[in-house]
């Protein structure tokens, strides 16, 4: 009893000290909560990803003096990429901190985007989940507070098909081709199916879908089926450990690596290095290309990496695909806030203003040049109706030691896919009895 009382007292003291210590926020700062995952099954990607985001925020704060003078006050919350924890962090931070408001919330998790979509709409906080999220939330008239920026799942399918067409010498050459998709049997893996089915019908190629059950560390039966199909091209839509296993198994069944096209989440160093020599020639969609030769990397190297301010534990990962994802996502947020400042003045924005800012975000070539993201980020323009804005990716190829960019931006056929998205968002609106918002 007595020992436990003492323990309780100690804990209480620690807590009160902690409460006292937390005041340290200046008004005039933009609060940005970051639901990180440096621990748990996805730590290897999360550590690099968030390092990229944090490094860019540090760069903006320290070198550029904040966004139009407004400093970013980010705070990390470890979630292990666990949806429950991300929801909890969202609830904890949505009112901002010490008077500095929240303008947006990075989810970086498709399940969390789903879980938060209604809460965020009610709380008026934009959810930012670039190259992920709920595909139909591209339709901003039904989902005003969800932003699957850059590259939604349907665009991934379409860009892949367009790249194949480019290699085959035109969309008309797709007729009669066999395109196999080996996918992770999860909501993520299935998400592109309606889009591929539509495109198969349109262009007359044969669409063969082969699932791999999670976690996918044994794929001989699947690749035997691929072999039997004698495909012209194979989409690899796996995730985590199933990607290197897919690449190696493909080699065992005699399918050349340069006929494999990985999707966004099967195209990082972590996906190819474990596959060893089998991965040489493997290609992947890259809305976020890898490499450290872009202008922004030069600036970061000088100001953040070489000064020891980087969040990276191992500087070797500077310029890795995941690190670059973090950079690009941070830049999108920073540019959106800048857009907002032009309308609302140079001050921290709240969620509603954040939505306006994201919905009027335009990043053109000139701007990309200025911020040093030329070739790393595609030009994009978000509107209240279109919350994706980009829909293009480059193709990168693994040469055995690094990713080499093979093409310029390949645009998805977004007009063709828009009816699919609108049908789904209309179904959602009907289910929820929502009246679609009229454009502003």
């Amino acid at each position, binding site marked *: 009893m007595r020992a436990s009382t003492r323990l309780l007292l100690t804990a209480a003291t620690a807590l009160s000290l902690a409460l006292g210590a937390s005041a340290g926020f200046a008004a005039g700062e933009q609060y940005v909560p970051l639901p990180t995952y440096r621990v748990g099954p996805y730590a290897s990607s999360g550590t690099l990803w968030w390092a990229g985001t944090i490094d860019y925020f540090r760069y903006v704060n320290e070198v550029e003096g904040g966004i139009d003078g407004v400093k970013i006050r980010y705070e990390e*919350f470890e979630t292990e990429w666990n949806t429950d924890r991300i*929801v909890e962090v*969202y609830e904890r931070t949505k009112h901002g901190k010490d008077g500095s408001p929240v303008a947006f919330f990075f989810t970086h998790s*498709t*399940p969390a985007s789903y879980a938060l979509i209604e809460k965020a709409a009610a709380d008026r906080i934009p959810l930012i989940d670039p190259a992920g999220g709920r595909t139909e939330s591209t339709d901003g008239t039904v989902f005003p507070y969800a932003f699957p920026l850059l590259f939604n799942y349907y665009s991934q399918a379409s860009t892949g098909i367009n790249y194949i067409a480019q290699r085959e010498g035109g969309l008309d050459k797709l007729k009669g081709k066999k395109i196999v998709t080996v996918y992770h049997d999860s*909501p993520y893996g299935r998400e592109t199916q309606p889009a591929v089915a539509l495109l198969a019908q349109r262009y007359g190629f044969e669409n063969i879908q082969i699932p791999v059950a999670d976690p996918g560390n044994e794929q001989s039966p699947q690749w035997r089926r691929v072999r039997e199909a004698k495909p012209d091209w194979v989409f690899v839509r796996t995730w985590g450990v199933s990607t290197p296993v897919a690449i190696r198994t493909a080699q065992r069944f005699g399918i050349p690596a340069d006929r494999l096209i990985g999707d966004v989440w099967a195209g990082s160093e972590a996906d190819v290095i474990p596959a060893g020599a089998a991965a040489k020639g493997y290609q992947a969609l890259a809305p976020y290309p890898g490499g450290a030769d872009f202008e922004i990397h030069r600036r970061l190297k000088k100001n953040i990496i070489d000064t020891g301010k980087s969040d990276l534990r191992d500087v070797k990962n500077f310029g890795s695909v995941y690190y670059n994802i973090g950079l690009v996502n941070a830049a999108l947020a920073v540019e959106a806030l800048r857009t907002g400042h032009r309308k609302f003045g140079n001050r921290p924005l709240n969620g509603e203003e954040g939505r306006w800012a994201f919905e009027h975000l335009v990043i053109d070539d000139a701007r990309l040049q200025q911020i040093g993201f030329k070739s790393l980020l595609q030009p994009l323009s978000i509107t209240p109706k279109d919350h994706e804005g980009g829909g293009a990716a480059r193709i990168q190829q693994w040469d055995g030691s690094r990713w080499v960019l093979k093409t310029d931006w390949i645009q998805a056929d977004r007009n063709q896919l828009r009816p699919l998205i609108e049908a*789904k968002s209309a179904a959602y609106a009907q289910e929820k009895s929502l009246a679609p918002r009229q454009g502003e």
Partner: protein
Amino acid sequence: MPNQPASPLDPRWAAAPAGAPIQFVAAFPHARPAFAAAALVLAPSLLGEYWINAVLVPFLVLSLAGIGLNLLTGYAGQTSLGSGGFMAVGAFATYGFLLRTELSFPLALLAGGIVAALVGLVFGLPSAKIKGFYLMVTSLAAQFFLEWLFLKVPWFSNSGSSGTISAPHLNVFGWDAGTPAGKYYLVLACVAALTWTATQLVRSQTGRDWLAIRDMDTAAAVIGIRVTAQKILAFAVSSFYLGVAGALWAFAYLGSAGVQSFGLSRSFQIIFIITIGGLSSISGCFFGAAFISLLPLLLDFVSQTLFAGTLDAGLLQNAQKFIFGVLIIAFLIKEPEGIARLVARLRTRLSAWPLRF
């Protein structure tokens, strides 16, 4: 797992009615429950939205799921790793009723629970023949099968993208329960009603039969208990509770959910809740759920405010896991029968205070 006999001499039972000093209890027999009820009912006006949405609601729902599994494992002695799967059945079935019929939410919830109970009944059938580890494996199969089913057949999620479901409307007989306070009261009402039912159930003939089966099913059969029927009933009742908890988790807490919200890790979480809280104890489920869901938040909060910026965030999180693990082990060594037992002992001691016994 179940090691104490179902005997009226069990010290926990003797301690149960004590609680506060005897005169006080005699004078105000309902003081304590009334106080707790008042605190829970007033919570939305006293606490911020964060506490309601992110702390109390998940805590209550997990407690309910804990009760569901405890009825099966703690009382009837049948092991199960399929809790997550049954929660998914409840969630998807409730969604189906909301979507395809005009039922209001409570009725859809009830219907969803009944569907979960039927599914539980089917997966409870093997318990007639096998026990212990083997039964656990069949329940594991149930878990995997159910996850696969909801993922594979788009009909269950109304072909929603990513197989995710979200509640079309939370209307409780015409009253809109979509607000944070509304959802909280909805959860509170369900949990209160089902907890009361569970306490009555375990004291009824059925509950006694379950305890007898748990302690030794051969002996139970000898004294005339219909062992197979009772075991399967336990599966059905347990699945009903889990199903309701799953639906509340999806619609009152998250707002939308997919199969991944009800994976195997959820099953384990619920097993931890009842092991830490105390097997064969209804109140233990609440203690266990509090321990599982609130302690990580507390640790996170303390480390966040004390060490933010000074230590590596990943290290902090690992340290939290370490502390959490050590606490669980230390705690189960000190009190293998769970928090419920600890609290009961503390109560008897306090009622005899300052004397030691």
